[in-house]
C-alpha cells in the first residue's frame, strides 16, 4: 500500500474446537478462514455479512479478545496476533472498540465521567490531565454541555446518547483504530443517522480509522470508503464502497444487494452453512444462483476460488469467483 496503514491483516485464521456430535469425530469450527486486508490511516473499512459469517470474530481477533489460530495482524511494527504482556497493552491503547448494545455495554452504576475516565486510569494517564481529557472526549462525542452530561447515569440517557458515551470512552485515548461492531443496529432511525455522522466527524477531526461491522449494506455504502463482503469466514469481494455497490462482481454480493434494495420478492434461499462443515470448492456454491444458472460446473464444487482483481474495473476491486467475468 502506498498510504500508511494502521493495521495489516494477513491470512488470519480463527478456529474453535467444535462439539462432538453422536458417532462423529470432533469437528473444527473455522470461524475465520484466511482473511487479509489493510486499513489506511483515516480510512473506514466496512465488513458486511450475515449472522455467523465470522465478521465479529475478525473484530475480536484484531482486538485480541480471541487468540488467532494463524496469520498476522501487523500494526506499529508489532504482530498483534502473537504479542503479549506489556507490548499487547501498549498496542491495545491504539485500538478501541464500540459494541452493538448501548444498553448492555455501559456499567449502570457508573456515571458517564467514571465510564469515560476508566481507559485513562488503566493506561496510566496522570491524574491531573484526566478531567480535561474526559470533558474533551464528551465534547467530541457531542454530549453537551460536557460538565453536566458527565454526572449522568446510563438510565438517564437515550440509546443514542449511550452510544455517544461508548464512543467518548473509545476516543478518549486518541486511538488510531476504532472497531465498531454493529454500533447502530439497535438504535432508532433518527439516532442512527446522528451516530454515523459523529463517526465520520471524528475521522475528519482526529484522523481515526474504523473497522465498521454491519449486516446492512446500505449503511456500509454511505459510511465506508471500502467494503469487504464476508461469507463463511472469508472475504468474497472487496472494493471501494461506491463501485462495489454499483458494479458487484460476486454472486453473493449481488444477492445481498438485491435483498437490501428490497426490489421484488426474491431472496437468497437457505441459511449460511455451519462453519464446522464448510462446503468443498467455493463455499458459496450450494446457495449460489450463478452455480445453478451455469448448470453446476464442477470447478465450483472442487476448486476454492481466490480473491482476484476484476480486470474491467478499478485497481483494488477483488472478487473470489471462478466466473467473475460473467457476473456483470
Amino acid at each position: 500500500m502506498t498510504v500508511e496503514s494502521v493495521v495489516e491483516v494477513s491470512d488470519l485464521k480463527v478456529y474453535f474446537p467444535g462439539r462432538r456430535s453422536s458417532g462423529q469425530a470432533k469437528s473444527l469450527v473455522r470461524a475465520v478462514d484466511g482473511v487479509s486486508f489493510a486499513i489506511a490511516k483515516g480510512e473506514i473499512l466496512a465488513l458486511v455479512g450475515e449472522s455467523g459469517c465470522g465478521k465479529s470474530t475478525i473484530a475480536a481477533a484484531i482486538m485480541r479478545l480471541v487468540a488467532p489460530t494463524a496469520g498476522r495482524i501487523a500494526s506499529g511494527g508489532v504482530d498483534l496476533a502473537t504479542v503479549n504482556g506489556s507490548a499487547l497493552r501498549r498496542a491495545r491503547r491504539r485500538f478501541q472498540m464500540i459494541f452493538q448494545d448501548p444498553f448492555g455495554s455501559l456499567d449502570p452504576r457508573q456515571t458517564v465521567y467514571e465510564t469515560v475516565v476508566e481507559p485513562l486510569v488503566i493506561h496510566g494517564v496522570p491524574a491531573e490531565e484526566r478531567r480535561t481529557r474526559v470533558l474533551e472526549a464528551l465534547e467530541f462525542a457531542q454530549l453537551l454541555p460536557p460538565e453536566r452530561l458527565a454526572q449522568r447515569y446510563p438510565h438517564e440517557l437515550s440509546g443514542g446518547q449511550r452510544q455517544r458515551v461508548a464512543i467518548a470512552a473509545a476516543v478518549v485515548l486518541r486511538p488510531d483504530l476504532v472497531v465498531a461492531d454493529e454500533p447502530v443496529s439497535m438504535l432508532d432511525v433518527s439516532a442512527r443517522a446522528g451516530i454515523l455522522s459523529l463517526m465520520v466527524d471524528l475521522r475528519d477531526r482526529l484522523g481515526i480509522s474504523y473497522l465498521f461491522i454491519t449486516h446492512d449494506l446500505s449503511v456500509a455504502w454511505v459510511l465506508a470508503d471500502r467494503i469487504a463482503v464476508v461469507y463463511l469466514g472469508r472475504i468474497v469481494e472487496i472494493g471501494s464502497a461506491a463501485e462495489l455497490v454499483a458494479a458487484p462482481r460476486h454472486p453473493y454480493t449481488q444477492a445481498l444487494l438485491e435483498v437490501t434494495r428490497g426490489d421484488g420478492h426474491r431472496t437468497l434461499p437457505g441459511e449460511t452453512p455451519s462453519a464446522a462443515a464448510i462446503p468443498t470448492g467455493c463455499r458459496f456454491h450450494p446457495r449460489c444462483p450463478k452455480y445453478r444458472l451455469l448448470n453446476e460446473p464442477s470447478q465450483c464444487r472442487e476448486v476454492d476460488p481466490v480473491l482476484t482483481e476484476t480486470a474491467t474495473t478499478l485497481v483494488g476491486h477483488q472478487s473470489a469467483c471462478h466466473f467473475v467475468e460473467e457476473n456483470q
Partner: protein
Amino acid sequence: MTLLEIKDLCVDYTVGADSLRAVDQVSISVAAGEAVGIAGESGCGKTTLGLAVPGLLPANATPTGSVQLLGEEMIGRSEDDLNELRWTKVSFIFQGAMNALNPVHRIDRQILEPIRTHEPNTASTAAKERVSQLLELVGVSPSRARSFPHEFSGGMRQRVMIAMALACRPSLLIADEPTTALDVISQSQILSLLGDLQREQQLGLLLISHDLAAIRRTCDRVVVMYAGVVVETGPTAVILGRGTEQRTAAHPYTQALIKAHPDLAGERVLAQALPGHPPDLSIPIKGCRFYDRCSVRESICHEVAPTLRPVAGTAHLAACHLVGGDVT
C-alpha cells in the same frame, strides 16, 4: 370485509399521580387479506396501539374508544373473553419474539400448546399433523419438529414463532418489529413469508416497524404515527414509493423519516438525522406535535392542532396545515 376497525382509540398511562396519553384519537382499519404498516420512531405509540387490539396493555394503561375485531368490541371485555379471542382470532408476534420460545421444551410441544388450550377436542394425531403442516408453511422442515430452540438460528426461531402464532388459524396477525433483530437475508426471508401468508391465507396483517423498507416491501397501506397521533396515512406505493418522483409523502415528519434511511437507489450521502426529540406527552400540546422539529413550520402550526385531511383523492391523508385542503 373489515377485519379490524379501530375508531378514536386513546390509551392513557398512569404513572404515580401523572397521566400520559400515548395514543390519541387513532382510527385505523384492516380488511381481510390486507397488510397495513404502522411506522414511527420509538415512543410514538405504535406498540401501545398494537397491544391494545388483543387487550394486552399493561395494568396502568386505560384504553378508551373502540376496537372492533370481526365485529366484536375488544375494549372493556373480560380477560376470559379476550383469552378466547387471542390465538383464535388475533395473534401477536412480539419484538425479539424468537427469544420468547421456552428453551427447555422442544418446538413441536410449544406449537401444540395453543392448539391444546383453544381446541381441546382436537385429536392428538390431528394436532401433530397440523404442527407438521405449520412448520412446512413457514419453511421449517417438519423433521426438525423435535429440536430445541437453541438448535435454530434467529431467523428460524422467528419462523417457529410465526408457526405458533398461526396454530389456531387467526384472522389477524399483529407483528411488532418482527425482523429488527435479524440480519438482512433473514429479514427478507421473514418478510416474504409474511407477505405470502397474508395473500394465500387471506390473513390480515398489522406490521409495526420503524423500518420503512420492511413496510414498503410488505404492506398495502401505511400509517405514520408521531407522538401518539396519526400524521399521515395512505397507499404504501404513494407515500413510500421508490425514488423521489414516485414518492409523494406529504407530511414533513414522514419526509424527514424517509431521509433518515440510507437508500441504495438514492444518492450516496449520509442520511440526515432528525434534529431534536419527540415532545413530552405529559405536558399538553396546543398546536402541531411536530412543531419543534419541523423545518417548514408557520405560526398557525404553534396555535392549532392539525387534523387529518385529504392530500390527493380520499385514500391519502395528512395532518399538516401546509398540505392539502384550501390552506397553502
